[in-house]
C-alpha cells in the first residue's frame, strides 16, 4: 500500500494560508481586500473555517479605546509586559497594543455583533491583569460579544474572506512544507474525504494552525489542536520558540476540560479537597480562592498529589471540588447562570446542590513558530525564511512571552494577522512563481503515512494517547523538575517507538479517521518532546513555567528558548534575545519596562 502514495495533483496560488482560523483569515482578508486579484487558498482541518477553534473563545478582546478618558495604550503595554513576567518582546507589545482599537473598529465595520453600551458604543469589561495607571485599578478594556467573542471574530474574518473569494480547502491537513532552497514554496496537503495528496505551490505561505495543547490530559483545546503546524516546522528543520510556556487554567470542568470561568470564584465559590476542606486558605491566606491563576493551579495539583484529590472513574482523572452551594439563589439564577449551565450540561451536576468537579486544564500555549514583528518566520535569532510567515497561537512573535493575559490572544490574532497580510502583500511585489514541485516533495509525509498504513503491530492507539496525556499532565504540567522532565523524555521516546506499531483499522485512504489520528498522535509526541527540551533548558520559574527545583526567576534566562528538532529527538537549542525597545527608547515611565518584579 505504502509505496503507492502519490501526489494526486498540483495547484498554484499566490498565498497559501495553512490554518483558516482567526489569525489566518484575518491575514487572508487583509490581502484580499487590499490586493483583490491575489489568488489565496486557505486550509482547515474542520468542515468550514467557521468551526475553527477561535469560535470557542468567550471572554473578550483587549483594546484601548482612544476615546476612553482613563485608559491609554501604554497601560496596556505595561500590563502585557508585566504579565509576561518580562519575557515578551517590547517591539511586538508596542505594535499590537497600539493597533488594538483600529482592529476592533475593523471587525465592527465588517459586521461583528459586539455587545453595546446604552449609547450604542462597543461595550467593554474588565479582565484579569488589565489595569489602569500601571497596575492601580482594573481597566474596562475587553471588548466582547456576549460570551461569544471568539465566534464573532471567527465569523467576521471568515465572512470577509468569503466575500473576497478566498478559496477554502476544508477537511484537509497540511502534512509537509515545501522548500526551494531556503524559500518556502507551499505545502503538501492530505484531503480527508477522498484520501488524496495535493501539492499546493504558493509564492507565500502563512502558518496559522492555532493552539496545540491536546497532549495534556485535561485541555480546553479542540480535538484537532494537535500541534501539526509546529511538527511541520520542526520536520522542516525550523525552530520553535518558548514551548515551555503552557498556560493552565485552574478550573477546568473535569473530563471535557471546559472552562469554568473565574467569575464563579469572584462571586464566592470555594475550592475544596476530598475532605471538603477549603484548602486555598492554607496556600494563600489572604487572597484565598482569588489568588492568581498559576498559584491556584499549583495549589490544586499539590492537593491532588498529596492524596487529597478525588478520582473520577469515567474520565480517568483526579480533581478537586468547586463549591457553589452556599451562594444565594439570585447569584445562581442571574449572575453565573450561564457558566453554571456547563456543569449541568457536561457533568450532570447541579451546582446549587452538588459539588462541582474541577481540575487545572491546559489552555493556551504561549510559544510557537518564532517570527519577527512582521510575522516573518525565523530560521534563527535573525535570519528569516523567505516566503514563510506565521501568526496566531501557532506563532510566537512574541506578545505573551511565557505568560499571556486573558483577552490578549484574540487581540494578537487580529493585529498580527493584519500585519502579516500587509507584509505578504509587500513580499508578493517581487516574489517569483515557484518553479515546480521540488524533487523531494513528499519524502516526509509518504514516509510517515506508509509506515502507519503498513503497521502490523499490536500497540493500542488509545493506550499510547492516554499515556501521553497523563505523562504530560503529571511530569511536564504545572510543576516541573529536572528528574520528571528527563523521565518524560524517555517515556516519550518509548511512545514514539510504540506508535509505529499501532495496527491500522482500514487501509482505505478515504475518510480514514484512524490514519488521520495516528498522524496527529505523532505530531503531539513530537511537540511534547520539544516542550520537554525547552522546559529542561529553562532552569528557572517564569510566567507559566514553574520549576520546583528552580522556583525563582533568574536574569540569566532573560531570553527566548529556541528548539530545533529536524529528526525525532535530535535536538539543538538556541536563544533569541528579548526585545526591550520600549525600555531602550527611554520614553515616559520607561523604567517600568525593565526586568521588573511580577507581583499583583
Amino acid at each position, binding site marked *: 500500500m505504502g509505496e503507492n502514495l502519490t501526489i494526486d495533483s498540483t495547484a498554484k496560488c499566490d498565498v497559501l494560508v495553512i490554518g483558516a482560523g482567526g489569525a489566518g483569515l484575518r491575514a487572508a482578508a487583509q490581502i484580499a481586500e487590499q490586493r483583490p486579484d491575489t489568488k489565496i487558498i486557505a486550509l482547515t482541518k474542520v468542515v468550514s473555517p467557521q468551526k475553527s*477553534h477561535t*469560535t470557542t473563545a468567550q471572554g473578550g478582546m483587549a483594546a484601548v479605546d482612544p476615546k476612553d478618558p482613563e485608559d491609554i495604550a501604554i497601560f496596556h503595554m505595561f500590563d502585557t509586559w508585566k504579565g509576561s513576567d518580562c519575557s515578551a518582546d517590547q517591539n511586538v507589545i508596542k505594535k499590537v497594543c497600539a493597533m488594538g482599537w483600529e482592529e476592533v473598529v475593523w471587525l465592527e*465595520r465588517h459586521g461583528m455583533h459586539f455587545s453595546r453600551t446604552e449609547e450604542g458604543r462597543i461595550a467593554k469589561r474588565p479582565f484579569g491583569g488589565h489595569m489602569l495607571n500601571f497596575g492601580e485599578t482594573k481597566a474596562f478594556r475587553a471588548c466582547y460579544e456576549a460570551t461569544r467573542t471568539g465566534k464573532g471574530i471567527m465569523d467576521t474574518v471568515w465572512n470577509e474572506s468569503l*466575500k473576497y473569494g478566498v478559496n477554502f480547502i476544508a477537511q484537509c491537513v497540511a502534512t509537509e512544507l515545501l522548500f526551494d532552497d531556503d524559500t518556502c514554496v507551499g505545502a503538501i496537503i492530505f484531503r480527508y474525504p477522498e484520501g488524496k495528496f495535493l501539492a499546493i505551490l504558493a509564492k507565500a505561505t502563512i502558518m496559522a494552525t492555532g493552539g496545540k495543547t491536546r497532549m495534556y490530559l485535561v485541555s480546553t483545546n479542540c480535538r484537532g489542536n494537535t500541534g501539526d503546524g509546529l511538527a511541520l516546522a520542526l520536520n522542516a528543520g525550523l525552530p520553535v520558540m518558548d514551548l515551555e510556556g503552557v498556560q493552565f487554567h485552574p478550573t477546568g470542568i473535569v473530563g471535557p476540560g471546559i472552562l469554568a470561568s473565574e467569575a464563579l470564584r469572584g462571586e464566592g465559590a470555594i475550592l475544596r479537597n476530598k475532605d471538603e476542606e477549603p484548602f486555598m486558605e492554607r496556600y494563600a491566606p489572604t487572597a484565598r480562592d482569588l489568588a492568581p491563576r498559576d498559584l491556584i493551579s499549583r495549589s490544586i495539583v499539590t492537593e491532588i498529589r498529596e492524596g487529597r484529590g478525588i478520582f473520577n472513574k469515567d*474520565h480517568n482523572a483526579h480533581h478537586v471540588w468547586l463549591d457553589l452551594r452556599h451562594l444565594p439563589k439570585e447569584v445562581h439564577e442571574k449572575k453565573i447562570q450561564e457558566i453554571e449551565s456547563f456543569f449541568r450540561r457536561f457533568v450532570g451536576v447541579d451546582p446549587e446542590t452538588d459539588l462541582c468537579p474541577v481540575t487545572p486544564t491546559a489552555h493556551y500555549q504561549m510559544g510557537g513558530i518564532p517570527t519577527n514583528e512582521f510575522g516573518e518566520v525565523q530560521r534563527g535569532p535573525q535570519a528569516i525564511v523567505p516566503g514563510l510567515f506565521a501568526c496566531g497561537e501557532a506563532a510566537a512573535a512574541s506578545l505573551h512571552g511565557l505568560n499571556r493575559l486573558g483577552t490578549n490572544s484574540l487581540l494578537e490574532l487580529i493585529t498580527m494577522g493584519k500585519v502579516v497580510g500587509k507584509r505578504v502583500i509587500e513580499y508578493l511585489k517581487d516574489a517569483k512563481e515557484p518553479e515546480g514541485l521540488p524533487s523531494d516533495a513528499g519524502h516526509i509525509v509518504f514516509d510517515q503515512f506508509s509506515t502507519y498504513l503498513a503497521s502490523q503491530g499490536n500497540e493500542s492507539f488509545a493506550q499510547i494517547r492516554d499515556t501521553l496525556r497523563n505523562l504530560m499532565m503529571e511530569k511536564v504540567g504545572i510543576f516541573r523538575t529536572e528528574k520528571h522532565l528527563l523521565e518524560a523524555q524517555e517515556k516519550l521516546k518509548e511512545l514514539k517507538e510504540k506508535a509505529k506499531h499501532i495496527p491500522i483499522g482500514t487501509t482505505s485512504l478515504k475518510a480514514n479517521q484512524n490514519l488521520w489520528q495516528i498522524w496527529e498522535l505523532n505530531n503531539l509526541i513530537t511537540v511534547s518532546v520539544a516542550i520537554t527540551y525547552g522546559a529542561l533548558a529553562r532552569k528557572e520559574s517564569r510566567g507559566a513555567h514553574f520549576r520546583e527545583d528552580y522556583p525563582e526567576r533568574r536574569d540569566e534566562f532573560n531570553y527566548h528558548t529556541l528548539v530545533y528538532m529536524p529528526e525525532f529527538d535530535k535536538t539543538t537549542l538556541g536563544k533569541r534575545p528579548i526585545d526591550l525597545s520600549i525600555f531602550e527608547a527611554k520614553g515616559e515611565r520607561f523604567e517600568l519596562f525593565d526586568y521588573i518584579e511580577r507581583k499583583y
Partner: protein
Amino acid sequence: MPESYNIILEISRYDPESHLSWIQTYQVEAGGILRFVDVLRKINDEQDPTLAWASSCEHAQCGSCGIIVNGKPLLACELLVKDAVEKFNGHTFKLKPLTIAPILRDLVVDLEKAYDKIHAVKPYLIKPAPPNPDGDEYRILPERVEKYVEATQCINCFCCATACISSHHHFIGPNATMANIVRLMDPRETAKEERMDILYREDGLYRCHTSKACSFVCPKEIDVSHFLALGKEGKF
C-alpha cells in the same frame, strides 16, 4: 456520583470504498456523565477503530458533531449518557448521520457541501453603510441588537436543516435563511434589495412551512422559526 449504564448503540455505517451500508450494534458500558462523543471514542478505543464520527470543540460551540439519535438531530458532544437514557426512555440508541449532505463514512457527513448553502446567502455585509464621520464604530443601540442577537448564536450545525419538514431536498435551509435575515435586520447592511431577492428565492423562504422543528431541535435554543416568520412578514 458516577453511575454506569449498559447501553446499546445501533450505528448506521457506510464504507466509501465498497459503498456498503449496514447497521452495526455495539454494546458499551459507559459512565452516566460520558458524552456521546466520549462513548464513540470508547468504541474506537476498545472495540472498533474504524468507526468514523466527527467532532471538534467537544463543548457545543462549533457544530461539527451533529448526528441523529433516535430520530432527533443533536450535538453528540452535548448529550450525556444518563440524560439520553432518561430522555429517550431506554438503553438502546439508533445513531444515524445527518441527512443534509452526502455521507463520507459512517456518521461523518460532508458538511462542507452543506456549507455551500450558507455561502449562497452571503452571510457578510454585502454593502456596509458608510462609516460614521467620527471614524470609529457604528452606533447601534442595544435595543436594536436585542432584536436579532439570538440569531447570531447559530453555529451552523445543520440540526435544524435535518429536522425540517421540507428538509434537505430543495430548501436552502433554516439556518442559511436565518443568516440572511440577520443581515436584513442589521442596521449596517445597505444591500437590502439584494438580500430580499435572496430571501424570496424559490428554494428560500417558500420552502418553510412553519413546522418549527428547527426551533425544537436547535441546540443553541434559537427560535429559528420566529426569524423565518419575520421574513414572511417582511418586517424586520
